[in-house]
């Protein structure tokens, strides 16, 4: 569910076909910058009732999905 949500958000934000976004996709390849990440984090906070500030280490879709899944499990 987290994975699907994040991929849907990225597809909409970057006007990319969701099928082209994989867990290995780098945010830099999608043209996502730090403020895009912050916008997405704020939407994810609302969606999953978590608190979260993205760090530069979360540079791929898979790493973000993993981080959000961990937070939702703890919430």
């Amino acid at each position, binding site marked *: 569910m987290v994975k699907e949500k994040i991929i849907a958000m990225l597809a909409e934000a970057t006007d990319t076909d969701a099928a082209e976004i994989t867990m290995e996709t780098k945010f830099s390849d999608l043209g996502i*910058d*730090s*403020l895009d990440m*912050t*916008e997405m*984090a*704020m939407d994810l906070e609302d969606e999953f009732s978590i608190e979260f*500030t*993205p760090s530069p280490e979360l540079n791929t879709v898979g790493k973000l999905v993993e981080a959000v899944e961990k937070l939702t499990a703890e919430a």
Partner: protein
Amino acid sequence: MSFRIMGTGMYVPPKVVTNDDLSQIVETSDEWISKRVGIRERHISETEFTSEMGAKAAKAALEDAGCQVEDIDMILSASVSGETSSPSTACMIQHYLGATCPAMELNAACAAFLYLLETAAAYFALHQEYQKILVVGCERISGILDWSDRSTCVIFADGAGAAVLERGSNYLDSICNVKGGDDVIKIPHDIGCSPFFKREQDTPYIHMQGQETFKYAVNSIAQDITTLLERNHLTIDDIAWIVPHQANLRIIDFSSKRLGIDPKKMFVNIERYGNTSSASVPIALHELKESGQLKRGDKIILVAFGGGLSDMACLLEY
């Protein structure tokens, strides 16, 4: 008792610095700044100090209001970039205007112009004899920028905005919040050369955590506006304009999205002025009025946020 806005004025220094000019100084581009921040050009002072720009904006506001300097009962100014800690920019503006009334400066960073309005409302309530108060936000932010830091030097700029307030009943409601701390935004002073002081200090420039600032700004804009509307039993359709602090176009756009409002409700002029801190709201208000799109009787919301962290919103009838 509160006030109504009689007149507004602004001043920006003549030197225009474009994104292409900045790309000669730091690694950046017109495309990146325009797309990512929403700024195309900004005004940077070459010879004028903060309070001199403040005085010019104040004169314009007095002229717009049809007032003489002698009519003003108090001058309130705000700045984080005054040329001196003392005298304050308010005292120097009083000097340049040839006024004799009391003058005082306050600091609430980019939210400060709204805190000036709040303070003016309090002074109108305290001193029944006060009829007019001049409020001025003025900045020479270019003097407190690290011009090798592309994350800040492309955003901030210089300018001043002012308003003449007259005793009245048009300041309808306000909300002020502070979340004190220096981990997100700070502007250290020069620590001087005391032979006894042992601590080191960061450089005396703007230090800003972009992501945290963005989050704070968007959340405070959305929450402050929602609170003002709810407790005044209004909807966004009752509001003619929202005049936000011009910090970053993406903050304004994302706030609109989260509020679920038409982005056109937000007045934006950041593309020509950049972020002028405490001057941004009065400059935007003045341009909105000059554009003919703001009518007497319109309900408007001003909203701002910045270092402190401080945020504030107010509901006014223009």
